[in-house]
């Protein structure tokens, strides 16, 4: 979109002419990728590096702003008439004009299965601006350890590619755990980078042959661990077993990124939940407020269901809630909270 056109479409005149709809509703007639401020895109390429993953290259519209390394987005796609939203880490370097994500099949997850099995180039996707503090540094440390397992490799790729693109690659050990070589995403790309970049040391571990991560393997592969800043990402079990190993070996910063909700306290609540607008009451006993709303037949928006995306934000008129991640109990009034990571800790009235 030409800047002048965008300016005109964003003006209050355009808004008044479109009221009560928005300008985007009319732009959709030309191309649903167009929008005055929402980032959206189309899938340009879908490559299957391993049998149970797919790497998507997405061409965003020009509302997309470049992400920082290691950030994630909330990715929305329409399947069978329903818009699903999921969080994915961006794998590409931040200065690329397209964005790349890799999705691994995840049990019976509707979205990941669809993407791995059926997604085709050309499909419209809804994006959000990238978020996340996985990589807070402005400049790379002297030495780094990138330690990942499974699909935890994607934010690592983005950090690594960002360093290479900026020509600032430090001394890096990239240690990755996959089940077998066939399951390892980005294996070819990493092999190539390791050949080209003398300061990149690649350690691939295949759990079916080498076993899980242990103190010995870590000591052998990264003897100078205490001199490295570490980035850690992977499934909850992996992260939980690695954290004590790191704690025992280094006092340098460890940055963690986790896309699983195991850290969430078991969701049980108490009290009564009253959904004010729909005038339904439910017991606050089982599950997060999001789950209670759904059981009561309501249909609030959600994305990640683990407190990352903020799609489930909703106003609580009054009540006592417990944060399922920190277990903290709060009395609140007229406050927006994320329904998916809060349970009732007493009576709660929600504007839904």
């Amino acid at each position: 979109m030409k800047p002048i056109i965008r300016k005109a479409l964003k003006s209050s005149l355009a808004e008044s002419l479109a009221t009560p709809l928005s300008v985007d509703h009319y732009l959709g007639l030309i191309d649903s990728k167009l929008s005055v401020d929402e980032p959206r895109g189309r899938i340009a390429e879908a490559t299957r590096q391993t049998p149970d993953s797919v790497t998507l290259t997405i061409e965003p519209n020009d509302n997309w702003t470049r992400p920082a390394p290691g950030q994630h987005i909330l990715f929305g796609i329409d399947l069978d008439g329903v818009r699903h939203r999921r969080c994915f880490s961006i794998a590409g370097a931040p200065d690329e004009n397209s964005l790349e994500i890799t999705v691994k099949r995840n049990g019976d997850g509707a979205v990941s299965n669809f993407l791995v099995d059926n997604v085709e180039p050309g499909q419209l996707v809804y994006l959000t601006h990238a978020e996340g503090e996985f990589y807070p540094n402005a400049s790379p440390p002297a030495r780094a350890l990138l330690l990942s397992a499974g699909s935890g490799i994607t934010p690592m790729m983005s950090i690594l590619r960002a360093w290479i693109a900026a020509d600032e690659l430090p001394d890096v050990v990239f240690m990755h755990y996959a089940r077998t070589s066939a399951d390892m995403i980005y294996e070819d790309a990493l092999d190539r980078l390791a050949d080209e970049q003398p300061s990149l040391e690649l350690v691939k571990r295949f759990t079916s042959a080498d076993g899980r991560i242990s103190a010995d393997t870590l000591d052998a592969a990264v003897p100078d661990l205490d001199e490295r800043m570490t980035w850690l990402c992977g499934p909850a079990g992996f992260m939980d077993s690695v954290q004590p190993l790191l704690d025992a070996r280094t006092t340098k910063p460890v940055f963690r990124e986790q896309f699983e909700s195991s850290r969430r306290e078991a969701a049980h609540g108490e009290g009564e939940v009253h959904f004010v607008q729909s005038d339904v009451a439910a017991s606050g006993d089982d599950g997060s407020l999001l789950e209670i709303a759904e059981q009561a037949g309501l249909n609030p928006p959600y994305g990640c269901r683990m407190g990352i995306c903020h799609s489930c934000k909703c106003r609580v008129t009054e009540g006592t809630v417990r944060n399922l991640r920190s277990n903290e109990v709060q009395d609140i009034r007229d406050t927006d909270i994320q329904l998916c990571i809060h349970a009732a800790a007493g009576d709660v009235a929600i504007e839904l």
Partner: protein
Amino acid sequence: MGRPTHLTDADVEQLGAELDALREEVMNSLGKEDARYIYRVLNTQRFSELAGRALLFAGILPPAWLAGTALLSVSKILENMEIGHNAMHGQWDWMQDPALDSATYDWDNTCPGREWKHSHNYMHHTYTNIVGMDRDVGYSILRMSEDQKWHPAFLAQPLYVLVLAAFFQWGVALHDLEWERLGKDKSYAEALSQGRDIWKKVRKQVLKDYVLFPALAGPMAPFVFTGNMAANFNRNVWSFLIIFCGHFTEQAEMFRIEETESETQGEWYLRQMLASSNVNGSVPFHVMTGHLGYQIEHHLFPDMPSNRYREIGPKVQAICERYNLNYNTGPFSRQLGGVAKRILRMALPHRRKRRGPMPSSIHHKQPARA
């Protein structure tokens, strides 16, 4: 509740269970096709709006003015009836598309969506045709039931009806102010804050149709202005006609508060069926009515996507027949005739209050399911 005498408690409960099952079946099958349907309606509405407004800019030519007004009317009708009304009922919430989200959708109408969701979704759909509870019964201007006290002012109600039809969206906008409760159990402060919301919405609507678009048209302003006015008028009259056919035909039944106390779910369904009336028509007709030609189905399942009412209509009718209940349907002309008759009859004081069982058991003397 007061209900047809030929149905036992068990019959009513069974009826409720059958309807629940029907609802379940449809709601579980929602998917791609439904999404395709509503997106097609959205695109049609937006195209016809743009084309209509563009043609009105050439409104100095009579055919362009006529075509422009017609297209804009179609667009406004589609937006109000099939899109706005139904989206604000939550029919499309399952799609999780923010553009169709009942929590945020606001329609092209002087009545703010929020207000409307209270007066319509809540008050009218819960207390359908209960005199004294459902303020849609006569919109507190008209007498539509014997149970409403007659007053000489009602003699002129055929006239009020014409005014209401012409300015229907304004009537709807002011409806939730509930002026008859003012100073009694409703405070002026509450009404004032509502009034402010309404004023905000009204200002935007008026600015768009009567100031900005005419101004943009420069010398064509008068044609754009009159075209917009005509389109709003057409939409008002059309929605008025459809809505009055939905609950005020001859055989649509009215209820008294005492009859509906501690209703079960089955009894609630029963009242929705007896209080609503359908209009027969073609598919395009139903789309233009927002599928309110299937008023009975809509009242049974207000949050079911409207395109499905066509499919369940015959099933609901079959259920009615099995339970020997009146499935109130007919061609537009007949239903409208019934509405006119009711309006005229109720203008006069000649009817005494209804007593005894509800009329539907008078139409149907046979026992349920012989």
